[in-house]
C-alpha cells in the first residue's frame, strides 16, 4: 500500500516550522502507524537525511508518550486509541496524511513532532497526590471503599497524561487532565483531607502554565484515548465551588 505523508518539521521552539512531504510505498495494512514512521526514518538515515523526531515508548497504549495530530485529530481517526495502537488498515491505499505535533501554548515544540509536556507534571506537583508518609499506612482493609466509588476513581485514574485533551481543545485547556486527577482522589476516602486545597492549587497551576479555560466544547472527551468523560470537569467545578464557599 502507498501513502503520502505531510509531516511537520521544526528544529526547535524558536524556529519556524513547515510541512515536508514524504511519499511511502511498500507499506502493509498490518503495520502500525509508528512502524511506518520507523520505516520512513530508517530510509532517511540510510540516505543520510535527517529523520523525523517523534515520541513513543511502550507502544501498547499505556505510557502516554506518543501523540500525533493525524489529519487534524489528536491520536488519529479511531476512538479510544493512542497513536501507537493505530494501524494502517484504518487508511486507504493512496491516502494523503497530515501529521502534526500537539499544538498548545503550554506545549512548546522540542523538535518536529516532539513537544514539552512538563507543564502537566507541574500541575500534579501542585497537589495531585495524597500526603502519606512511607510506612505509616494502616492495614489496607481498615477503610472499606464502596465498589462503585472505587470503580469511578479507577476510571478517572486511567488517565495516561498524554495531553491529547489540551491538544484537541480550541482553548488549549488541560481541564480534562486536571479533572481526572481531582476526581480520582476526590472519590476516595483517602483523598478527603486535602481536597479543598488540592483543587485550588492545581487549577491555579493550570492557569500559570498558560492552558486556557474549559468552554464545554467536549473536544477533549472525543480525543481522550482512555475515554475519560467531561462530567469529571463538572465534578471538578463543583469541587472548586465548594472550596471557595469553605474559604469565604
Amino acid at each position, binding site marked *: 500500500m502507498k501513502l503520502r505523508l505531510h509531516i511537520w518539521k521544526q528544529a526547535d521552539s524558536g524556529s519556524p516550522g513547515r510541512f515536508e512531504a514524504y511519499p511511502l510505498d511498500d507499506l502493509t495494512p498490518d503495520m502500525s502507524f509508528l512502524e511506518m514512521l520507523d520505516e520512513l526514518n530508517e530510509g532517511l538515515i540510510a540516505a543520510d537525511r535527517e*529523520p523525523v523526531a517523534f515520541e513513543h*515508548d511502550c507502544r*501498547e497504549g*499505556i505510557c502516554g508518550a506518543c501523540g500525533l495530530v493525524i489529519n487534524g485529530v489528536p491520536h488519529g481517526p479511531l476512538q479510544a486509541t493512542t497513536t501507537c*495502537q493505530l494501524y494502517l488498515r484504518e487508511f486507504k491505499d493512496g491516502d494523503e496524511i497530515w501529521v502534526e505535533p500537539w499544538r498548545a501554548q503550554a506545549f512548546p515544540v522540542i523538535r518536529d513532532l516532539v513537544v514539552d509536556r*512538563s507543564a502537566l507534571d507541574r500541575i500534579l506537583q501542585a497537589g495531585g*497526590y495524597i500526603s502519606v508518609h512511607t510506612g505509616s499506612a494502616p492495614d489496607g482493609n481498615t477503610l472499606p471503599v464502596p*465498589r462503585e466509588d472505587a470503580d469511578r476513581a479507577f476510571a478517572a485514574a486511567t488517565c495516561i497524561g498524554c495531553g491529547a485533551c489540551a491538544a484537541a481543545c480550541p482553548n488549549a485547556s488541560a481541564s480534562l487532565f486536571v479533572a481526572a486527577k481531582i476526581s480520582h482522589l476526590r472519590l476516595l476516602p483517602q483523598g478527603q483531607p486535602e481536597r479543598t486545597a488540592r483543587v485550588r492549587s492545581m487549577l491555579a497551576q493550570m492557569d500559570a502554565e498558560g492552558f486556557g479555560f474549559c468552554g464545554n466544547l467536549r473536544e477533549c472527551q472525543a480525543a481522550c484515548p482512555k475515554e475519560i468523560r467531561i462530567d469529571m470537569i463538572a465534578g471538578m467545578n463543583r469541587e472548586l465551588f465548594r472550596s471557595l464557599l469553605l474559604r469565604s
Partner: protein
Amino acid sequence: MNGELHANAPAGPLENRWARHRFDMALVNPANRKKYQVIVVGSGLAGGSAAATLGELGYQVKCFCFQDSPRRAHSIAAQGGINAAKNYQNDGDSVWRLFYDTIKGGDFRSRESNVYRLAEISGNIIDQAVAQGVPFAREYGGLLANRSFGGAQVSRTFYARGQTGQQLLLGACQALYRQIAAGTVEMHPRTEMLELIVSEGRARGIVTRNLVNGRIEAHTADCVVLCTGGYGNAYYLSTNAKGCNTSAIWRAHRHGALFANPCFTQIHPTCIPQSGDFQSKLTLMSESLRNDGRVWAPLDAEDVNRDPAELAEERRDYFLESRYPAFGNLVPRDIASRAAKEACDEGRGVGPQVDGRRLGVYLDFSDAIAQQGEAVIRERYGNLFEMYQRITGEDPYRTPMRIYPAIHYTMGGLWVDYDLMTTIDGLFAAGECNFSDHGANRLGASALMQGLADGYFILPCSIGNYLARREPGPLAAGHPEVRGAVESVRARIDRLMNAPAAKHPPEVFHRRLGRLLWDHCGMAREPEGLRQALQDLPRLREEFWHGVRVTGTGAEFNQVLERAGRIADFLELGELMCLDALARNESCGSHARTDHLTADGEVRRDDDRFSYVAAWEFSGESGAPKLHREQLHFEFVRPSVRSYK
C-alpha cells in the same frame, strides 16, 4: 575480588532476619540527612518509590529518567497484579507460603533471606498503595479483592483491572511529585545516564546527557542507586518499551559491578505473534487469559492453514492439558512457552509466515464462551480482546486468538548483596535491574512486589546504614575522576557519530543481534548454537562500530544517537548472556538447555554443581569475563523437582 561471593545476609531464624538486620544497621541523625546527596537513576516502581522515600527522610535526592516524565517509566505497562501474603481470603496463605512459592517458582536459584524478606514486606506495600489512593479492585462490601494468578493455588494477587502497574506507578509517582514540590527531590527528566563516576573504588556520581540539548553533565553524590529496569530489549523484539535499555547497568558493570545470571531471561507465553519484518515490538496479553482460554495447535502440520473452526476436536492438540493434567493451561510461564515453541518447531504453528516460519498457537475461548456466556467473558477480558482485535484485525470472540512467547522480563542483572549494594562500594541496584529474588524464573505478580519492596522499604534502610558510616561530601566538579568520566562520554559519542564507513541505521544491527539471541539464547539453548553466537557476536559488534550511521550532531536533540549508544551496550551484553548460558551446564527455570532435559522434555537441574549465582566480572573489551560464584545455601527449604504434571 576473588573466589566466592558473600551476600552479607544475616543468620539465624529466617523470620527474624530482616528485623534483626534493621536493628543492627546504623542510622543517620535526622538533622544530618540533608547533608547527604543521593542519586537515583530511573523513576519506575523501584526508582520512583526510592527517590520519594529517601527525599521524605530528608536526604538531598536527584532523580533521573530518560522519558519526558517520571510517570512514563515502563513499570506503567505491567498488567496483571501484585502479590501480597495478606491471607485476606483465608485460603491458607502466609508469608512462608509466598516465600516458598517464590523460591520454588525461581527453580531454587535465589537466596532464601532475600525472598523471605520480600514476602514479609509484601503486605506493607499494599497498605502503602491503598493509603496513596491506588484504586485496587474491591468487593461489593468495600474490601480489597484478590485473584489467583499465574498458577498460584491461593488468591493473593491484588489488581486494578489489567492496569495494576500503571496504578502502582502513579501512586509512587504522586509520592515523588510531593517530594519534588517539597524541594527534597530534584527531578531530571529527559536526561540519560551514560557513565558512572567511580573514585577510589567508590561510586561517586554519574555523567548524563541532556536529551533535549545534548549537554553532557556530571552529577556527584554520596551514593548512587540504579533502578533502570531490565535488558529484554537485547532481543530487539520484546514486550518492553522501546526505550528500555541496559546502558546504566552495563556502564556500572564495566566499572567493576558484577553482572549476575545474565542468561536468566523470561519468556512470556501469551503475546501477540509477530506479523511481519517491520515489527517493532511485541504486545503482551495478561496471562490471566489462560484461566479461561485453551491452548492448542493442529495435531497435523497439514492443517496449519485451515480455518480453526473447521478443525474437529480429534485434529487438535491441547498440548498443555494433555502433558500437564494437574495444572493444564495454567502451568508456569517457562513451561507454557517451551511447549508452544516445540509445537511450532514441529511445523504445527499457525498464523502468517515470517521468515518462512509460522510462529503461533491458538488460545481458544470458544468453550469458555459456550459454557459461561459471552457476557461473562466480555466482562472479564473485554479490554484485552479489544486490544487484540485492534492489533491483529481479528475478532477473538469468533476466531481463536493466536499467541506466541516473547521476551518479557530479565531475572539477571547487577549482583547485589542483602543490602542491595553491588560489588562497587556505594552503588546500589534495585528493581528489575538487579538479579535478586526471582532466581531462574519469575512468578506472575512478583515484579511489582519486588520493585516496591526495594524502593519503599529496603533501600531507605540500607542507604541510611551506608551513609551513616561515611562523612558527607561529594567529589568536586574538577576532580580528575569526574573530568575523566565526562571525557570518556564525549569520546564515545564522537566515535558513534563518526564511524569510518557510516552507512546503516543502528536498528539494522539491533535486529541482527536480536535474531542471534532469540535463536541461540532464547527458549531452548544448545551448546553448539551458543558457541556459534559467541563467534558471531564480536563480528557484529565490529561491523556496528565500523558501519553505524548516526545523523545530526551530539549537541542537539538526537534520537538516533540515543538508540545507537544503547545498541552498542546491548551488543556487549549479548555476548555475556550467551557465555553465561553456555557455562551453566544445566537446565533451570527459564534457562532450558536441550542437552539437559529429562526424557519427557522437562528441565533437569543439577543442584550439586550449579546451585550458585553466576556473577561475571568485566575484564576489558577483548578479555574473557571472569566468573565468581555465590553459593546458594538452602537451610529452610529443600530444593525439589518442580512438577506441574
